[in-house]
């Protein structure tokens, strides 16, 4: 179980301090599929990075399975079972897909095991296993490999930052299938996905709506989804622009 207690994050902007995450307290129960949604700039990615330790919260506490991890670094949190799939996956010259999956697994896994993870994300394993994770891979391919590195880790909490970003329509169908499979798998893990996509929201057990650094709604899909479809929370950038006009 993940608990955030009064977590805040301030960044230094051009005009002084900017509050990105404001005093968020929430509980993410075990073995659930949670989707965090809300307008751009609402603090979703930052919140995920705070949980993984990539950014350090400026106030509040983060408790993971009863342990206070607020002061723990990225590596320590990873070893406690927190996984993170980046919105924009990183490229590595020289490291192959197999190298990366082996690093992720934390042991020298056999090729057939690595192939399973690739198949799970819809990549034909034999075409990819020895490819370098470099600029020769497309954004969509990279994104799936990124997801495979999280699958290979056997984590307790998997965070996915906008997995659909940069993925074409065809690949998007596969992406949904990957998450459906993950959700139905018997592995005990909590999945937290940051997404704007209705189809991903549709498979959530629980939805959290974040705006202006705060939780504005949290509840079951049945409860939240009808409220946000077609509203300002699902509308993203346009809402912000309209808001700006109204304020002008």
């Amino acid at each position, binding site marked *: 179980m993940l608990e955030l207690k009064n977590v805040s994050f301030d960044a230094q902007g051009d005009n002084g301090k900017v509050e990105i995450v404001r005093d968020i307290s929430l509980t993410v129960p075990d073995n659930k599929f949670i989707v965090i949604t809300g307008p751009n700039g609402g603090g979703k990615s930052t919140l995920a990075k705070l949980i*993984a330790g990539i950014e350090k919260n400026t106030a509040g506490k983060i408790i993971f399975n009863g342990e206070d991890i607020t002061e723990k670094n990225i*590596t320590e949190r*990873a070893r406690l079972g927190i996984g*993170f799939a*980046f919105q924009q996956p990183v490229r590595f010259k*020289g490291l192959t897909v197999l190298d*990366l999956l082996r*690093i*992720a697994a934390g042991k020298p896994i056999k090729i057939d095991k690595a192939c399973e993870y690739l198949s799970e994300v819809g990549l034909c394993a034999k075409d990819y296993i020895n490819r370098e994770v470099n600029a020769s891979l497309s954004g969509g391919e990279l994104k799936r490999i990124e997801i495979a*590195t999280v699958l290979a880790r056997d984590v307790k909490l998997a965070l996915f930052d906008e997995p659909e970003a940069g993925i074409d329509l065809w690949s998007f169908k596969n992406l949904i299938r990957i998450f459906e499979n993950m959700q139905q798998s018997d592995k005990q893990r909590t999945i937290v996905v940051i997404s704007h996509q209705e189809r991903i929201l549709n498979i959530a057990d629980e939805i959290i709506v974040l705006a202006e650094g705060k939780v504005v709604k949290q509840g079951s899909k049945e409860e939240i989804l009808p409220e946000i479809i077609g509203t300002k929370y699902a509308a993203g950038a346009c809402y912000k622009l309209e808001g700006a006009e109204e304020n002008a």
Partner: protein
Amino acid sequence: MLKMDAIQMQLIREIADLHDVPEGAYNFRANGESVGRNTTANIDIKSKIEGSGIDIRIKDGTKNESVHIPVVLSESGLKETVYNDFFIGENCDVLIVAGCGIDNCGQQDSEHDGIHRFYVGKNSKVRYVEKHYGSGDGNGKRILNPVTEVYMEEGSTMEMEMAQIKGVDSTERATVAELKKDAKLVVRERLMTHGSQTAISTYKVSLNEDGSSADVVSRSVARDTSYQKFDACIIGNAACSGHTECDSIIMDKGRILALPALEANSVDAALVHEAAIGKIAGEQLIKLMTLGLTESEAEEQIINGFLK
């Protein structure tokens, strides 16, 4: 039988990946003397009359054979210059493994300057692998200054793989190549310097006839206060294609000077160069740390992959 001690065998393992006497032709040189040699029906090795190196002659049509010519120095204060000439006939397909390992536990500098000349016959294919390695904790420096000259006849191909990953204090490498019609040269250089080491690598590749091509790629890592200079010039004198690339990671207080250069003397010469120097990207470290590695483990993985 090879007359070598444990340190020399260890050096051989590092540079040639050999645990025993290799198959095929070989010449092992240790502390300035030949300590083992084997020739085959197609590959002959003879000492030069003046004793400063060897001539390797490979007959026309020799296929799937190899020549190993490792050199080790384990005596402090030894300086040598060795000339090895390879005469490769026509229509061959051979592997040549060279390399030098220096173990210097003493106070005096040890130096090996190997001058390798390759005459590659028509339509022959050569793969050349060269590794350099240094060990020993003495104050004496370990110095390697290899010179490689490659003369390629029509339709020949040469792939050169050169690596220097550890322990060589000072290196000045010069590679010169001249290519005739449809000849193809591929160079893959990998270099890591640490401590206060210096490494200079110079290439001058002349594409003299139509259809010739060269691809010279260097990947290097400079750590601590080490210094590297990569100076690669491809000269296009005909309808040819050339590409040179220098890709470097810089760490600590390392310094790198990359000078990729192109000279086109023909309107049909297609030449490209690329150079990039930078530290390890923070996001690469973060990604590997989210997979459970510490920062220094992540750094090692990134460098190992980069130099693979």
